[in-house]
């Protein structure tokens, strides 16, 4: 229930996920809000240079909004910036591409419009803050976000026990279709066989153990990214388009010995 139900105006804070051009100078803005969930709303005249609105409705902006409820597309009538996360991200290309993949994932994981998704909102807000702070490798921040948002959506991978028998020992494989790690006895043909530190890294990212994650080696990070991406694509029907464009910060990229799940 919104505070002012019955009135055609309502207010919420949110993160701008995506903008699309509409007509001559307008945009359709997709926002993930704290109380209302994902909203698509129209913003009038924001593409004109004289608009005071435009900069506040750019992707990555955490913004306080007032909407006017209409039958089809709601209208954004006011916008105040809370924090423009886009500013620090846009000057750093690897961080920008990682952030874009986070926004797209948030949009895909909140399938129903106007269905409250507080945990997804908080997760995205925290993820963008961490990404903008610049303290960790952007790809690690992205992978941590992807693992956790999948968990919130109900697709948490099992990482510290075998998905088949529950054993906590000799975890050798990662079976995407089965939903997580597998021990040597249960391993199915076709399952990936990541290095043990890769599974540990994934677990650290899921739990938010940054000390462990920051100490990981580039080849395990690359392998982890490959597995997380494959796991995500498996669960999301249409996949995440921006994932293909995500760049790594450090130059040397070690090979990913990835097998189809």
């Amino acid at each position, binding site marked *: 229930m919104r505070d002012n139900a019955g009135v055609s105006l309502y207010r919420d804070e949110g993160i701008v996920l995506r903008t699309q051009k509409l007509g*001559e100078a307008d945009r359709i803005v997709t926002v993930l809000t704290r109380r209302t969930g994902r909203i698509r709303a129209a913003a009038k005249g924001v593409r004109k240079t004289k608009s*005071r*609105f435009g900069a506040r409705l750019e992707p990555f902006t955490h913004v306080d909004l007032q909407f006017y409820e209409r039958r089809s597309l709601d209208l954004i009538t006011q916008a105040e910036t809370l924090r423009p996360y886009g500013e620090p991200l846009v000057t*750093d*290309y690897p961080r920008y591409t990682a952030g874009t*993949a986070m926004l797209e994932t948030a949009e895909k994981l909140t399938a129903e419009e106007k269905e409250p998704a507080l945990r997804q909102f908080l997760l995205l807000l925290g993820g963008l803050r961490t990404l903008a702070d610049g303290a960790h490798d952007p790809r690690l921040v992205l992978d941590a976000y992807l693992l956790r948002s999948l968990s919130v959506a109900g697709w948490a991978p099992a990482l510290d026990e075998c998905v088949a028998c529950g054993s906590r020992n000799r975890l050798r494989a990662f079976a995407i279709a089965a939903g997580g790690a597998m021990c040597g006895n249960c391993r199915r043909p076709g399952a990936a066989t990541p290095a043990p530190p890769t599974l540990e890294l994934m677990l650290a990212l899921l739990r938010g153990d940054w000390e462990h994650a920051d100490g990981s080696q580039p080849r395990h990070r690359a392998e982890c990214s490959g597995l997380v991406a494959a796991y995500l694509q498996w669960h999301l029907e249409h996949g995440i*388009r921006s994932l293909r*464009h995500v760049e790594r910060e450090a130059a040397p990229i070690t090979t990913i010995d990835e097998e189809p799940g």
Partner: protein
Amino acid sequence: MYEGVVQNLIDELGRLPGVGPKSAQRIAFHLLAADPADVERLTKALREVKDKVRFCRTCGNVAEEDECRICRDPRRDPAVICVVEESKDVVAIEKTREFRGRYHVLGGAISPIEGVGPEDLRIRELMQRLADGTVTELILATDPNLEGEATATYLARLVKPMHLKVTRLASGLPVGGDLEYADEVTLGRAFEGRRLLDV
């Protein structure tokens, strides 16, 4: 619904940007009532634009020959290239009469969420133009929105080893407006890019 040909025209007009069904109907009936010579001129213009106009092989701007007017003009400084997203931006900058260099039209901006990556833009062509060392300054004039900024960042990083002078168009207060109405991001940029007033 009207008879075949009339409805056909209305449907075709309705596919144009910004033309709704009602406007399409109005234009269609205007054309029906119009002088045949006027309509002939319009059809000729439409046919010509598809037949004659292509893209400049150097800069990617719209052109009627292999190269556009600006690339052929010897008075334009070949040492300065201004990178823009679309041909429309070339026209906008030309109106200022401030710029005497040449252009490079990317054909859009990097937008991972729409599936547009650096390889989908005319970046390789730009790198080829920069390779022979004639160009000394690159002006990044992509849109001052998130995607434009990201594209500028990407290009600046890409050409860094070439030791060019790379500049970005300033962002700030619109001329003729009030300061109090500026949004905080724009005003912040205006502060960042303030310049020395030497009187």
